């Protein structure tokens, strides 16, 4: 490999990027906008679920129950209705995702037998939300029944004695607030870089074929490896700008705590950029049309990255076969790395395994791309 040729190619590539301000703007703005769109769009926390109440009793007790719902951060009472048909309408129109119905004999049964039930009607079109909503509702009702019990004991005139045989004292690590955003945003950075990185380089070889400059280029003594490295260097810089944007937005705008070292971030991000840029380059080598290469790059990176990288869906909860497949998804290693760097503040040594995988991946793809490039027309 000759440095002189590397330099010539890199300089030429920089000039071409510079002379095409539209593509440059897209390359710089795309991650920016995606970061904001997806950063706000993806939120797995269920808060302030709209509740529809149907109080068939209208007693002090029933109103107390609803106050418990209102006080919880998970629910907001959106509607008070007077009939079942109105309950159905509220759920059908998706005005409310859960309805709580208090029976007419609620207080009476509670006083007589010491136990009463309320009805929860849940919109389960999204089963995940439904499960969580049900859990929260049960917790609210439990809390309310505790209060009722305590006041009942109180009224019996017995000395108040907390009966709590066992309690769990939990401490949450790394994401203390249990904010899903803290867990999603670092992964989002990885996902966006996987998409944008492959896009950046997917045009670089196909453009030369389409513009007819490739025929002359391959008649020169330039080596495939020189061409590849020379072309990747400017995009590495561009990719770094994009990554810096995304990481800064994650830490400064979304306030995700960053606990790792900048050095570790630099090393791992560079490594990841090498992987994604050379994937885009490989596609560009294999597919000689710009449109084709960029479409394939999008298809080949988007779905696997979104679904299988562990960015949203935890890998250890996937079926074993799918879990094995995720080892091929290069984004998963960087998702792991970025999450750990942000939330755990892991060191490079602790991240050795995903880093090693990325090194293997980068080497394999680059060797493949250099070999796939043929200095021939047939």
């Amino acid at each position: 490999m000759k440095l002189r040729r590397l330099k010539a190619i890199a300089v030429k590539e920089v000039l071409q990027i510079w002379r095409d301000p539209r593509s440059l703007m897209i390359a710089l703005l795309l991650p920016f906008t995606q970061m904001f769109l997806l950063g706000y769009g993806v939120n797995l926390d269920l808060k302030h679920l709209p509740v529809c109440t149907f109080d068939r009793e209208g007693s002090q007790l029933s109103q107390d129950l609803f106050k418990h719902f209102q006080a919880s951060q998970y629910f907001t009472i959106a509607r008070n209705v007077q009939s079942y048909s109105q309950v159905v309408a509220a759920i059908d129109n998706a005005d409310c995702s859960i309805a709580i119905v208090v029976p007419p004999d609620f207080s009476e049964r509670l006083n007589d037998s010491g136990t009463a039930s309320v009805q929860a009607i849940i919109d389960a079109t999204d089963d995940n939300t439904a499960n969580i909503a049900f859990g929260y509702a049960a917790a609210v009702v439990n809390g309310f029944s505790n209060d009722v019990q305590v006041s009942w004991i109180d009224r019996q005139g017995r000395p108040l004695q907390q009966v709590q045989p066992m309690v769990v004292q939990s401490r949450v690590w790394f994401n203390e607030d249990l904010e899903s955003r803290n867990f999603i945003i670092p992964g989002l950075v990885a996902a966006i870089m996987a998409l944008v990185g492959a896009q950046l380089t997917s045009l670089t070889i196909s453009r030369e074929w389409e513009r007819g400059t490739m025929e002359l280029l391959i008649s020169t003594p330039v080596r495939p490896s020189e061409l590849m490295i020379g072309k990747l260097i400017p995009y590495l810089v561009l990719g770094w700008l994009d990554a810096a944007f995304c990481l800064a937005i994650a830490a400064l705008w979304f306030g995700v705590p960053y606990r790792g070292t900048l050095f570790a971030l630099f090393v791992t991000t560079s490594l990841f950029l090498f992987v994604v840029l050379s994937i885009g380059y490989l596609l560009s080598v294999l597919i000689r049309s710009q449109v084709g290469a960029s479409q394939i790059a999008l298809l080949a990176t988007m779905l696997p990255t979104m679904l299988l990288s562990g960015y949203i869906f935890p890998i250890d909860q996937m079926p074993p076969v799918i879990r094995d497949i995720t080892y091929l998804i290069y984004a998963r290693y960087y998702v792991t790395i970025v999450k750990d760097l942000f939330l755990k503040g892991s060191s490079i040594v602790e991240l050795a395994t995903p880093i090693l995988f990325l090194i293997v991946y980068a080497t394999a793809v680059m060797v493949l791309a250099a070999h796939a490039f043929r200095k021939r027309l047939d």
Partner: protein
Amino acid sequence: MNAREPGEPQIIAEELIKRFGTFVAVDHVNFRIGRGEIMGFLGPNGAGKSTIIRILCGLLRPSAGRALVAGIDVAADPERVRERIGYMSQKFSLYRDLNVEENLRFFGGIYRVPHNELADRMRFAIDMAGLRGREKALVSTLAGGWQQRLALGCAVLHRPPILFLDEPTSGVEPASRRRFWDLIHTLAADGVSVLVSTHYMDEAEYCHRAALINQGRLIAVGSPEELKHTALGGELLLLEGDSLGPTLAALTDAPGVLDCSVFGNALHVLVRDAARSLTELPALLEQKGLRPTRVEPIRASLEDVFVQLIAIDMAQRRQAA
């Protein structure tokens, strides 16, 4: 021209064949090009000129046969060949979004022209292309003739002993074409071997030797003079008259007539002996009631020769088929 030496030929093609599927693009082609020699490839579009050049540049692998450039087998070691050649592809292939200087500097880097020589060589290329004062102009803004001369400048920046120019003058205005050929001659005078293709028949006159290519085969090779005198294998008569159709039919089987073809509003008749046919043919036509207004020997232009040769070649192919 004094740089032309016999010695070892710089380019050798031996029984070169290139097939694309069942289509034979290059069919048993043989030729040699010496040092400082300008060899022209002429022929209609799709004749196989570009394919042969691409094989010699190592861009296409020959299906059979051997190509030696600068004494190196192209198929075996294309990279060593590429260091010794300059190439202008048929389609313009410099970077249009780079300026004149940036293109030259890029190719200077690719060919690793020594740093201390690069400035001189770039100045030489810019002067040669007549682009002084336009060094910072984007290539896309240059007219066709300038673009082609710059492409030539890029191709010779590393002083290759061998140049492949694929239709360098196509789409270039006549005055610029003339100037381009002057440049080629200057380079050849310095000992550069040049293989240049063109579909302008008149440009064959600028070559030391020209090869006529039709449907993948070399159907004639020689200096322009040789081609004009001997390639036809006979002499040409021009014949004008009213009823060309019947005249053509009458002449086709006439004794001494080798070939006959319509050329504008006249007939070109290829005969074994012009003097004899000049007296025989009018008499023969007279018998059939045909009176040509004019019959006279003509000196064939290269274009006549090529049209004639291609017509003969086509006829032979049809017969063979």
